[in-house]
């Protein structure tokens, strides 16, 4: 077909599709995506696993090792959730119950409370099968329910599970089970954090390989067909119900294995570890990376967990905040000279506002930042830091903090409605400054809450701006 001239229409190549592909090719994200998709799967796996494999050799601190293990656990969970949500398009709101079930089953098989001491090579496969079977049972309603009803029923299952966990005596209620034995493979216990890290890493490599092969198989293709159009898939004689149940079972099995690793890492299981907050965090991971893409989901989980960890320390959190703002401006604003102008304008605006406040209302700049690093000193001379705006617990003392916060939300939303590029850029300057003030005064005061506020906002913004996430393919749906 080399002699074909470009003007002639080609078979199977629709003009609209071609123009969409052309538009797509212009963005940075899609170029990255093409590179990722062009790389062989084995290379990608090594590229991911290698940094993790050397991580314990480079890191000394126990805290960072714990973060590493948590990251891997989140990655595993996100991969499990991706099966139902990303590949089959079922909104499973009960997913964390499977994770909890895996963890509690491990506690039932290997803890002093249960009086049993099963070895991991028996316990983990058993738990995987048992939780997958539970997933199958919970998935049964999906045969009759579509979309949103299914979401609600799975949410019922999660609530029922939590009710049992919190109130039943055999789970020891909210106190949880706290004397869980460490993982033991063929008589050798895993005792160090490094050991657990490698167990989680092996689980990651194994599970991601299985999921990859599954996705490449007939079943994987059928799942995607089901996601795009259930009715059409059924008409093509695909066993729709069985496919849905399989997706539930596979996702649940992954969550169960993860739970069985999570329980001995923590040494204890509590009902509070398996609640809606975890569920929504997992959704954020899956969606940020790109539902349906293994690379995307993995990257999303790592990114979000790393950001959540960074948000614990005020100075790190500030770096993260200003970094994300600058990157977002660079990526979103066109033409290219605009981001530096807006950033410069914001800095000047802030300095002027700070100077004016010092002249007229010194109380507005009398407070102190939450961190003590270099960035906080810079911030102190730029952002308005009113005295006693929040209590030591971080709650606003008066109306000013609340008004600033709500005003910021209103301003950001209002700004998205401004059509003219000039006015939007002009409006961006005070909004950015207000955001910095609210960040330094209110959000840093309660980092634990601020991270969830940000996750919620991110989910909404992502769905509106780039629903396919960082690595997902854009899907077109005709109404």
């Amino acid at each position, binding site marked *: 077909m080399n002699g074909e001239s470009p003007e002639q229409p080609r078979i199977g190549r629709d003009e609209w599709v071609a123009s969409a592909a052309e538009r797509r090719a212009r963005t940075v994200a899609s170029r990255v995506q093409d590179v990722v998709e062009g790389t062989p799967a084995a290379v990608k796996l090594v590229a991911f696993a290698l940094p993790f494999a050397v991580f314990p050799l480079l890191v000394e601190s126990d805290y960072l090792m714990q973060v590493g293990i948590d990251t891997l656990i989140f990655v595993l969970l996100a991969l499990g959730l991706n099966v139902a*949500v990303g590949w089959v398009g079922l909104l499973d709101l009960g997913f964390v119950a499977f994770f909890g079930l895996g963890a509690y089953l491990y506690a039932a098989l290997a803890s002093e409370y249960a009086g049993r001491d099963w070895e991991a090579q028996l316990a983990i496969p058993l738990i995987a099968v048992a939780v997958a079977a539970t997933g199958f049972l919970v998935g049964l309603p999906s045969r009759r329910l579509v*979309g949103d009803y299914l979401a609600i029923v799975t949410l019922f299952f999660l609530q029922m599970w939590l009710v049992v966990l919190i109130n039943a005596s055999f789970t020891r209620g909210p106190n949880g089970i706290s004397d869980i034995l460490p993982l033991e493979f063929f008589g050798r216990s895993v005792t160090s954090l490094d050991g657990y890290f490698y167990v989680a890493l092996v689980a990651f490599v194994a599970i991601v390989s299985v999921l990859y092969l599954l996705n490449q198989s007939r079943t994987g293709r059928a799942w995607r067909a089901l996601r795009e159009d259930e009715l059409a898939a059924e008409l093509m004689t695909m066993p729709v119900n069985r496919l849905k149940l399989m997706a539930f079972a596979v996702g649940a099995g992954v969550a169960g294995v993860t739970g069985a690793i999570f329980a001995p890492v923590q040494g204890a299981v509590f009902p509070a570890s398996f609640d809606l907050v975890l569920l929504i965090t997992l959704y954020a991971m899956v969606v940020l990376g790109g539902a349906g893409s293994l690379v995307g989901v993995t990257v999303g989980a790592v990114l979000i967990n790393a950001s959540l960890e960074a948000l614990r320390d005020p100075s790190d959190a500030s770096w993260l905040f200003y970094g994300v703002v600058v990157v977002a401006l660079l990526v979103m604003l066109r033409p290219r000279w605009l981001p530096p102008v807006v950033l410069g304008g914001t800095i000047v605006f802030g300095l002027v506002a700070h100077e004016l406040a010092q002249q007229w209302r010194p109380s507005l700049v009398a407070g102190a930042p939450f961190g003590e690093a270099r960035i906080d000193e810079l911030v102190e001379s730029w952002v308005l830091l009113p005295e006693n705006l929040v209590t030591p617990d971080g709650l606003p003392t008066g109306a000013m903090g*609340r008004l600033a916060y709500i005003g910021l*939300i209103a301003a950001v939303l209002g700004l998205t409605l401004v059509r003219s590029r000039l006015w939007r850029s002009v409006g961006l300057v005070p909004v950015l400054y207000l955001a910095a003030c609210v960040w330094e005064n209110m959000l840093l005061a309660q980092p634990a809450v601020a991270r*969830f*506020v940000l996750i919620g906002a991110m989910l909404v913004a992502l769905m509106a701006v780039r*629903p396919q996430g960082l690595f997902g393919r854009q899907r077109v*749906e005709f109404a």
Partner: protein
Amino acid sequence: MDWDKLVQLLVNGVTLGSVYALVALGFSMVYGILKLLNLAHGDVLMVGAFIGWGILGWLGGAQDPSVAVWLLLVLMVLAAMAGCGVLGVAIERFAYRPLRRAPRIAPLISALGVSFFIQNTVLLLYGANFRSYDTVDLVDVEVGIHWGPLNVWVIRLVVIGAALVMMVGLWLLVTRTKLGKAMRATAFDREAAAMMGIDVDRVIVKTFFIGSALAGAAGVLVGLVFGQINHFMGFNYGLKGFTAAVVGGIGSIPGAMFGGLFIGLADAFSVGYIEDFTRGRLGSAFSDLVLFLILIVFMLVRPQGIFGKPEVKKV
């Protein structure tokens, strides 16, 4: 048979039921028009409860209100309705409208995000402690009906009455006005409605305003009867309100009223009788278990609800 307990549970159930019915109406209207499960609806209710609480505090608090009690109650409800209506419109405009043509799962995830955002915003601004309406200081518990085993606090009567008035008002709006006709047309077939000259976007915005205003009112009513509010209360009411809408038949107004009553009574009775039925083995904390089991079975057996018609899939 313990008649006092039975009657008390009945009264509890009807009170709860009228609140659930208000929530169910909002769900039902939005679902009818957009086919969208507005997971943030319960959180709108929570915001309404906080607005009512704010107005109460601003007008002197429950111990020493600066206006007459009836006026105070009316102001609280109206402020919550207005605030939540605006909130609902904002949610629709910024979280759902950009996703009209997206795959079905996208608005649901966006709704999860909105719900999480609102909850944590209130947590950030007001903290995790329960806030109290102190309604017993406003109206004494003894004021009300005392007739044999029937003892009803007047606030409960107010709540049931207010819910009834709003439901009848909504029913009149939907069946008798031009806007109601436009709403029904849009719910039936959005594209055909648009071709008939109905401004679909405006109808959707008004639907969100009305539905969210009802949720806001429900929030204040919850606060008045049960006294305690916090940032997470919306989840429970949202979940049960949605189920009420499904039980009654989504999209049907009498269905939502009936469903609310059904869930309210089921809720109250499962709390009241679970210990007797299981001979003390399961405490009242397990009542949700029974309720959810009933609901799952119901959704499987009759997903279109009592008053709904089975949906025919169009290709």
